[in-house]
């Protein structure tokens, strides 16, 4: 992976300097000026120089066509310079008395007489060194934040160089102002500049109107939330139990914010096609790519330990039996997905994102990078591979779920899961994306104070948004209702558990419901399930990491030693975590758990993007 930073094209734009000058001037005059400055500060000259800053990539938390998030170490010792023009009060007594209360003023007769002098200050020889957090999103522009005070030194040359006192004073004052500028004003300036560069996006974002022709990427990006919105809406209508309305409202807001009418139309036809068995499926460009990225992201948290316990499964089942309402089913589905790692993934997967605790986030960040490589390598895989990947994603989800509901068998879950859980995950994703948007906007402000949490959260959010995005486009795969039911059946058969009986009623009930979103996801999943079923057993016994799963999908029988060792290690880790989780869980009340599960399920994104491809 290589990055190419172009320094000169930025400066080649003839309008760039004038715009930057204007923005700088506005920024410099915004904050109250020290009393020594008696006129507006004008930026007369601005030159970024020819020497670009040295950037060292410390971390990349998110990477896509239209998104980027990373942390850099920046060193700059170039030849940029900046010339300011203003008027200063040259009489120190005057500036001093202007701020002092008049009651105790010595009231000099003429010693405080003013003398304003035009001043030209040239700032050059900047020495900057600091950590930069750069977040780029095509829709939201560039957010650049300095984690620390980047200014090491600079040379201030002014009209008063011959007077040491004034020179020192100016140097001190300007350094103070510049530090403030770098930490507070510059992020805002860059953000505004970037918004202008992507003017149309800026327009759409600023005005909440629906644009008829959005950029393809943005449309795909938006499709996720929209779809989730719809599905959740349908669920609301169709399901008597009803679900929390908060997610729904969230979606509404989001939709109005980011969805264009055209993409809305596409998504509508998409969902309609699923419902009506129509063969026409609108194609949404770039959807596949996103699905890939999501899949890669997903893999990180997942390594299911070989030892899966049935302890939690029992609880979930009991819940189901007692309350066949949606929440219960969802929970069950999640539990199933956890254990089986087969088709359950879709439901459980979002769970991993949403339920991730603080401790897990860090590991995810690390894993993200690794996966990208693996996923990219796996791009060329055949359909079978893709199938395996989808499985893996589901398995990852399962891992997270496993923490909560271990040992539940996949078979029963498969039937119930698709219907119930799918819409919620999407909704949750939409909510996520909303969060993400917020974060990106507010990041400059937030970063200085709470850096660590900010960083930790960042990748997480992105991943979530990613997940959702691919899900939507992927869903177009045309799995009609029959397909949904059919695949589920084999699963039931292949993995029957003692509790099958209890689950079946619930599954039947839900299967009967014609909820479009469910069918979408279930379709791909169900198709895969037959193939996967043999693997599922292995999956349950072996820890599953996404990259590894891919490799295993091709050469499932012959796992590399290194892989196995790594898997074992991960399995151990997982087991340990699971134990911790269990201890924690036991304390929690069942109701709370149920609620949690429901929420998590709600956030699960669909797994079957590859199939679409």
């Amino acid at each position, binding site marked *: 992976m290589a990055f190419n930073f172009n320094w000169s094209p930025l400066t080649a734009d003839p309008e760039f300097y004038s715009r930057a000058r204007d923005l700088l001037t506005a920024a410099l005059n915004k904050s109250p000026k020290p009393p020594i400055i008696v006129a507006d500060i004008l930026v007369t000259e601005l030159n970024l120089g020819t020497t670009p800053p040295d950037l060292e990539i410390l971390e990349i938390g998110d990477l896509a066509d239209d998104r980027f998030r990373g942390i850099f170490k920046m060193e700059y010792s170039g030849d940029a310079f900046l010339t300011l023009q203003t008027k200063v009060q040259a009489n120190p007594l005057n500036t001093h008395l202007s701020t002092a209360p008049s009651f105790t003023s*010595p009231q000099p007769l003429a010693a405080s007489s003013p003398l304003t002098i035009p001043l030209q200050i040239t700032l050059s020889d900047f020495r900057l060194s600091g950590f930069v957090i750069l977040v780029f999103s095509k829709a939201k522009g560039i957010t650049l934040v300095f984690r620390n005070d980047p200014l090491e030194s600079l040379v201030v040359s002014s009209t008063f160089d011959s007077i040491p006192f004034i020179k020192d004073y100016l140097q001190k004052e300007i350094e103070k102002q510049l530090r403030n500028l770098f930490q507070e004003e510059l992020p805002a300036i860059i953000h505004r500049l970037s918004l202008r560069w992507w003017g149309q996006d800026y327009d759409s974002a600023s005005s909440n109107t629906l644009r008829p022709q959005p950029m393809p990427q943005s449309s795909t990006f938006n499709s996720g939330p929209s779809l989730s919105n719809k599905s959740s809406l349908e669920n609301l209508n169709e399901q008597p139990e009803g679900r929390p309305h908060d997610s729904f409202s969230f979606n509404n807001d989001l939709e109005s914010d980011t969805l264009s009418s055209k993409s809305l139309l596409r998504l509508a036809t998409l969902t309609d096609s699923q419902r009506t068995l129509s063969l026409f499926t609108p194609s949404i460009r770039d959807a596949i790519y996103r699905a890939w990225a999501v899949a890669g992201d997903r893999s990180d948290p997942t390594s299911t330990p070989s030892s899966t316990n049935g302890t939690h499964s029992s609880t979930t089942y009991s819940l189901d039996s007692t309350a066949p309402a949606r929440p219960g089913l969802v929970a069950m589905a999640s539990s199933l997905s956890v254990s089986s790692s087969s088709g359950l993934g879709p439901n459980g997967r979002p769970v991993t994102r949403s339920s991730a605790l603080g401790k897990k986030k860090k590991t995810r960040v690390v894993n993200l990078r690794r996966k990208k490589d693996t996923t990219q390598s796996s791009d060329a895989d055949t359909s079978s591979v893709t199938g395996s990947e989808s499985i893996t994603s589901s398995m990852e989800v399962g891992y997270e779920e496993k923490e909560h509901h271990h040992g539940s068998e996949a078979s029963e879950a498969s039937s119930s899961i698709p219907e119930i859980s799918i819409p919620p995950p999407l909704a949750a994703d939409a909510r996520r994306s909303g969060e993400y948007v917020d974060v990106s906007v507010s990041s400059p402000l937030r970063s200085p104070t709470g850096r660590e949490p900010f960083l930790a959260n960042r990748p997480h959010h992105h991943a979530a948004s990613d997940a959702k995005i691919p899900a939507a486009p992927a869903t177009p795969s045309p799995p009609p209702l029959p397909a949904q039911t059919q695949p589920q059946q084999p699963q039931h058969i292949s993995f029957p558990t003692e509790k099958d009986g209890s689950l079946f009623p619930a599954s039947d009930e839900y299967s009967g419901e014609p909820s479009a979103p469910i069918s979408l996801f279930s379709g791909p999943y169900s198709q895969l399930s037959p193939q996967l079923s043999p693997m599922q057993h292995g999956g349950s016994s072996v820890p599953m990491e996404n990259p590894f799963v891919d490799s295993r999908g091709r050469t499932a029988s012959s796992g590399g030693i290194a892989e196995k060792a790594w898997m074992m290690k991960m399995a151990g880790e997982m087991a340990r975590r699971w134990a911790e989780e269990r201890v924690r869980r036991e304390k929690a009340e069942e109701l709370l758990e149920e609620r949690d599960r429901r929420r998590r399920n709600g956030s699960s994104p669909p797994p079957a993007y590859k199939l679409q491809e």
Partner: protein
Amino acid sequence: MLGFMDYVQKCFYRASKWDEDNSYANLNATARALLDFPTPKGLKMNLSSLSSPNFATSYSMASLGVVDGSVSYLYSSRPLDNALNSGDVQLKDAVSGYRDLREIMKPDDPRDWEIWKGGVRVDRRDTLLYGRMYLPASTLEALYLRRLAPTRQLKISAVSNSRLPNGGTILALLQQDNGKWSTEYLYSTDVALIGMRGLYNFGFDPRKALPRSTTATTTALDPRKIAGRFSAGAEVYYGILNKSGGMSTGFRYTTLPSNVGSPLTVTLTVNPLMGHFQASYAVKAGEGAVFCSRYDFNIYSYESDLVLGCELWRRKQGDDTAAAADASAAAASGMSAGNIDQTWQPETTSFSREGARDDVTGVLKARITQNYNIGLLWEGRYKQLLFSLGSNIDLKRREQPFRTVGIEIQYNS
């Protein structure tokens, strides 16, 4: 218009025979009063009372968007019998305008201040204590004034406000006035500012002229008194903490009441460090009109400024009998506090009688600057109330020329 507390403080100076004008800080007081007068903003009301000759209180309330006010108390160890209420006070004393400088007085002999009682010295130094609290702003002003000796006065003023650096500042000012010359030493805690001011009056030395003047006071034919007075002074400041300083020097020529021509005051101040020159010329043309101009010029930045101002006194369209009666009454009362000049200017009765008789109903002050910024102020008395009505007009803004409008009402009892 002077605030009541400022007026009382002025009365204290007068009662303790302290010449405020014989100080370098007040070298151009005339020009400042005529050209830099503040115009009221919004509605402001002052309610003050001198409940006893030693104790004064004042409450003020201002309404300019938000209501704020202040409460102030003043204590003087010397009974201030010369302070009058708002119905009786001469407008000339309540309004700062053209300063009719009086002849330099010979300071009292320190021995004159000694009071012995039964072989023990019982005299006390005159002291004034003053405090003012601004209520919403939570600002406290305090003043301690003490006449250390006939030629010395200590003035300590302090401001306390949490928003100020270090929570406030204290200014200590030690003034010494020998008549012929005066010096001031000050220290401010703000930036550890130290300063020194000095003023020297050329010509007639009251101390040396003492033996003769005692005999010649009534004749008033001493040629040394006829002319005006030329004074020169300088000031130096240095802030220890910010290592910056400032200085200026100034000159003033003013006619004395003994002058038969039109009274006039000319000042020139120079700040050699900043290259700033300021020249002012004020002339009293007739009984009720003062005109003043001031020109600023900086030889380094070539910046200049010109301000013109005037002060018009409106008198009662009176019958001469009433005026004469007033004059006679005033003469009979002996010009209690404010008109010491009367005692040794018998030949300039016209002036003195004018000052004594308070037939002034109002004063109009106006100024105009180079930027066509006009300040107008009407100060007068309505029954027992003193009021000042003012406005600031910017002619360059055609659409909204009136920048500020305000009225201030004062009642003192």
